[in-house]
């Protein structure tokens, strides 16, 4: 394909023609998306991608997630890698091996092409590292003022092997709750950049694809009851979802919950509770009590689970309350968040 004028990736901006379905849009897709996401499926330039299923049996899993993070670039990542990691993790938390991704872009007129390129390169890298290609996509452009720069929706498809059945309704009293590492890094990294809030912190977002860790865990303990990545709403939201799905209570121990000193300090400063702060590269797992120690060992031997911990257990409680034993030895509830701790952070 030859164009008289190459895409000006340095100074150019998104304009309405990039979404019009004409030559400019074809050029954007070809020079930016196809070039960076490069693979056979995408090169075929169809509106959909046909791909073979892996041999063997299993169930398909599909997950989709829209990303509207502000700011678009933050310590440790950007909206691009986040949109790849988030969806890969959603597939993985269903017990699936992620195979392919689709990406939809809503671009705001005026958005610098250089920034878009940075985002696309970051997505391409994230997809390559995770070994999950982006095989189809879509681009729309909205008028200035009607978007927030870039919105990205990614959809992932994967396969869940037979014998794996992750479902929080299977959680039973006595089951153990584990987390894969330090909580709250992503949320604090993002908040550190917010207008009016800016504070100095060395904390970086933990955004990462954790399907490798999940696969190791499932291989070691196929009887895992539930997996979930604690993104928006943090650990507290996941535990409350688990408790209400399972119809039992959960007790965690504050002392056992891994939170970095810097994150705790930043939360203190902002009046936040780290249990409610977002993560992007962590998971919460529930397993039968007898598998807990083994699962912990498996998690700790994976680089993404080095700081894993058993933080509590499910208990009999028809009210489905989540409680926490504080470092003081008292007990309190860990309830759903009311409203938002702060404006949206992921």
């Amino acid at each position, binding site marked *: 394909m030859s164009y008289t004028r190459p895409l000006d990736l340095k100074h150019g901006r998104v304009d309405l023609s990039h979404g019009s379905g004409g030559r400019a849009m074809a050029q954007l897709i070809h020079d930016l998306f196809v070039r960076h996401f490069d693979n056979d499926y995408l090169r075929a330039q169809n509106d959909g991608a046909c791909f073979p299923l892996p041999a063997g049996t299993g169930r398909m899993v599909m997950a989709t997630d829209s990303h509207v993070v502000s700011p678009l670039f933050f310590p440790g990542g950007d909206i691009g890698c986040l949109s790849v990691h988030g969806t890969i993790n959603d597939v993985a938390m269903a017990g699936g091996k992620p195979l392919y991704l689709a990406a939809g872009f809503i671009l705001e007129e005026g958005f610098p092409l250089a920034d878009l390129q940075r985002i696309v390169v970051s997505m391409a890298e994230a997809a390559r590292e995770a070994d999950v290609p982006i095989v189809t996509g879509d681009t729309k452009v909205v008028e200035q003022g009607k978007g927030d720069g870039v919105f990205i929706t990614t959809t992932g498809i994967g396969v869940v092997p037979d014998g794996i059945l992750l479902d929080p309704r299977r959680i039973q*009293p*006595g089951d153990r709750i584990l987390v894969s590492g330090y909580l709250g890094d992503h949320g604090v990294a993002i908040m550190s950049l917010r207008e*009016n*809030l800016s504070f100095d912190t060395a904390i970086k977002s933990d955004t990462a694809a954790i399907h490798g860790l999940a696969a190791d865990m499932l291989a070691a303990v196929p009887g895992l009851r539930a997996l979930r990545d604690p993104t928006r709403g943090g650990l507290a939201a996941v535990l409350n979802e688990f408790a209400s799905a399972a119809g039992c*209570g959960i*007790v965690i121990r504050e*002392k056992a919950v891994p939170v970095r*000193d*810097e994150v*705790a*300090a930043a939360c*203190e400063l902002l009046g936040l*509770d780290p249990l409610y702060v977002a993560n992007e590269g962590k998971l919460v797992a529930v397993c039968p*009590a007898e598998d807990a120690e083994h699962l912990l060992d498996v998690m700790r031997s994976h680089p993404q689970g080095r700081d894993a911990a058993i933080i509590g*257990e499910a*208990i*009999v*409680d*028809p*009210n489905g*309350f989540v*409680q*926490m*034993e*504080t*470092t*003081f*030895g*008292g*007990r*309190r*509830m860990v*309830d759903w968040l*009311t*409203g938002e701790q702060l*404006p949206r952070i992921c």
Partner: protein
Amino acid sequence: MKYIDEFRDGDIARKLAATLATEVQPGRSYRLMEFCGGHTHAISRYGLLDLLPPGVQMIHGPGCPVCVLPIGRIDSAIELARDKGVILCTYADTLRVPASGGLSLMRAKAQGADVRMVYSCDDALRIAREHPDREVVFFGIGFETTTPMTAVVIQQAAALGLTNFSVFCNHVLTPAAMVHIMESEGDPSRVALDGFVGPAHVSTVIGYGPYEGFAQHYRKPVVIAGFEPLDVLQSILMLVRQINEGRAIVENEFTRAVTREGNRKAQARVAEVFELRECFDWRGLGEVPDSALRIRAEYATYDAERRYGMAYRQVPDPKACECAAILRGHKHPRDCKVFGTVCTPDHPIGACMVSSEGACAAHYTYGRFKEIPLRAEVSA
């Protein structure tokens, strides 16, 4: 970080609790009011009640600035934003406080009023400078802690000669409210409160001096306490000791931040910009004399009440709501019939359910599981 750990050490807490248990006299009751919402929050969030021996009872006071803001004042703020077309800048918690007609600032915003959440009054001033063509009003609320900042921005606005900025002043005073709680019970000797955990941040500004007359007159000990959980436990122990010994003085647990005199500079700023209101309507407490501030005549242009000719209308609290009794320490949130059913943090009926410092919200969020008989046992 070290700083935080020191005041959250579980072992020290358990030792303090053990000491408390030995010093509390059997059969005697210690009804202690924590005036501040910050203490209410700390007590709930760290599960401190579990550490107190029987006999020691904590009673939530009216020290949550959001909870005590009367409906009429929220209504006025909504009118400003909706009918006068101003940009109304407000702290987040205030957005959700129920007002008349099923409205709140948040709902008014959804209906098109220009209400903006700010983290500090500086932000409001910045917005005024960025929008010289719009009128910007800062909805100033809070106790002595936030007042100096409001005074500073008013003086800054004056120095900059800003003509599109004003403050809707609702700043209230702590000692007046404490006196009111004692007085409103009729005969002061009959009041069933035995002591006060005194405000932390407020006292960094006004010092602990202003409570001395109170402690002496009402024969009630006051211990100024920080907001860390160990501060609260330590102050409870200090109160129990005073009560046991029949003393009633002001003691300062929060020595790392509070002195007798407080912050003189901040006090001077406040005095330059504000003067006492004869009377202010508090949600839950009603009219309390000399309990709030208004903007002095010298700064009249920055006074939204004068600028927009706002007249205060008293609006009664919703019928079912027990906020008034809760703020005075007469009732516990669980005594309210609509607690946790009709009234929840997502759909607050009364103001105590809005901020995490409100007694009802704190109990709902952190403590309500204790009300419900649990068959819950931690399995082995």
